């Protein structure tokens, strides 16, 4: 079964407001109901399905697209008892989104954005580059939402099998590598920019880049990074002219 392109786009668009109705009782539950409502209200048995659609569910806002597509399919099939199925989606869909988007994609784009702003030659270039960063950040997420709704609908009950694709294990590794380099460059260039001496500047760049890259690749907790960073900053300020 395939969801029409028009319906996929409508669900994707309405999914953007998922978090608006976030509450501690059903978390995103009413958000799914809102996304499904134009279709649901035409259904003869909507009274039965409203509860199923609005029941507790909490996932990452982007990965929620998989849940939404699957939910639509299950309701279409006439399933009404969805509580335990929805419970089993929360962890995996939350985990993938948190790890991939909040923990890797967002910081990576932030580091790249800060880097290009640091290197941009003029305020006009800053504006263009900042707009480009917003676009680069959001375009894949918009695509992912659209894909998620369609794939979720196709898989229905077995929606979690979408997460077994090799992409979901490969992507964090690649994003982690690129992110560590981008953050290293950002810290290194920021440190180097404050130095008037060429040799000292190069040393500061290497130390900044190396420490940041190492800390991110090794996932060293912030608790240990902060004292080292403060000690390094103090040492640099003492030896700089």
């Amino acid at each position, binding site marked *: 079964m395939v969801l029409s392109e028009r319906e996929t786009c409508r669900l994707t668009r309405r999914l953007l407001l998922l978090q608006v109705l976030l509450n*501690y*009782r*059903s*978390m995103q539950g009413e958000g799914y109901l809102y996304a499904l409502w134009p279709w649901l209200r035409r259904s003869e048995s909507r009274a039965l399905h409203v509860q199923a659609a609005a029941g*507790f569910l*909490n996932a*990452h806002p982007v990965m929620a697209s998989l849940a939404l597509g699957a939910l639509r399919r299950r309701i279409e099939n006439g399933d009404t008892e969805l509580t335990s199925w929805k*419970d*089993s989606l*929360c*962890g*995996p869909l*939350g*985990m*993938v*989104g*948190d*790890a991939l988007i*909040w*923990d890797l994609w967002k910081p990576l784009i932030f580091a790249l954005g800060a880097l290009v702003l640091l290197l941009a030659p003029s305020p006009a270039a800053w504006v263009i580059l900042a707009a480009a960063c917003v676009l680069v950040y959001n375009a894949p997420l918009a695509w992912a939402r659209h894909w998620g709704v369609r794939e979720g609908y196709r898989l229905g009950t077995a929606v*979690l*099998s979408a*997460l*077994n694709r090799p992409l*979901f*294990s490969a992507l*964090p590794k690649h994003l982690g590598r690129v992110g560590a380099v981008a953050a290293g460059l950002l810290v290194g260039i920021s440190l180097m920019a404050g130095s008037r001496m060429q040799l000292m500047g190069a040393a500061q760049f290497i130390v900044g880049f190396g420490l940041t890259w190492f800390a991110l690749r090794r*996932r060293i*907790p*912030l*608790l240990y990074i902060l004292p080292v960073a403060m000690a390094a900053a103090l040492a640099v300020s003492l030896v700089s002219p």
Partner: protein
Amino acid sequence: MSLPWFRRENRLVFPVVRVDDRLLHGQVVVGWGQTLGVAPLLLVSDRVAKDDELSLTFRRLIPEELRGDIVPVTDAAERWVRGEFKNARVMLVIETPVDALKMVRLGAPMKVLTLGGLHFREGREEFLPYVFLSDWDRTTLQELRALGVRIQCQDLPTSKPIPYGE
């Protein structure tokens, strides 16, 4: 950022045992696991351990450095009793307070139980925005307290633990 675990009364006790009905999500992996350098991270659930497909999905999702695994409640208790968690930064995530009680009854030397995420269900009342408790949960927690387990609510290691039932 406050570091409340530096205070004596709030000092983290390993293994950290967290009750979270979602088991695995960003708060657990990034907030607790990666911030505190937890390894291994054990998801203790009979429901997930029985479901091969769900177990496989969970295993794939846990970052390698956390050396995650999914274990049934009895196995986790037995490993704890055998002393396998000694001198390790172990974190156990369990689904319900009943699982914690089961572990303690099997001999697990649990000192502190952290309620990290028990969400709304029919019959549960709000204790904190992230902790909703049913009468059954409350009875179980009382029993755990009577067995010498300190109960606290804490969503992230950087937030202040809120004692339960004191």
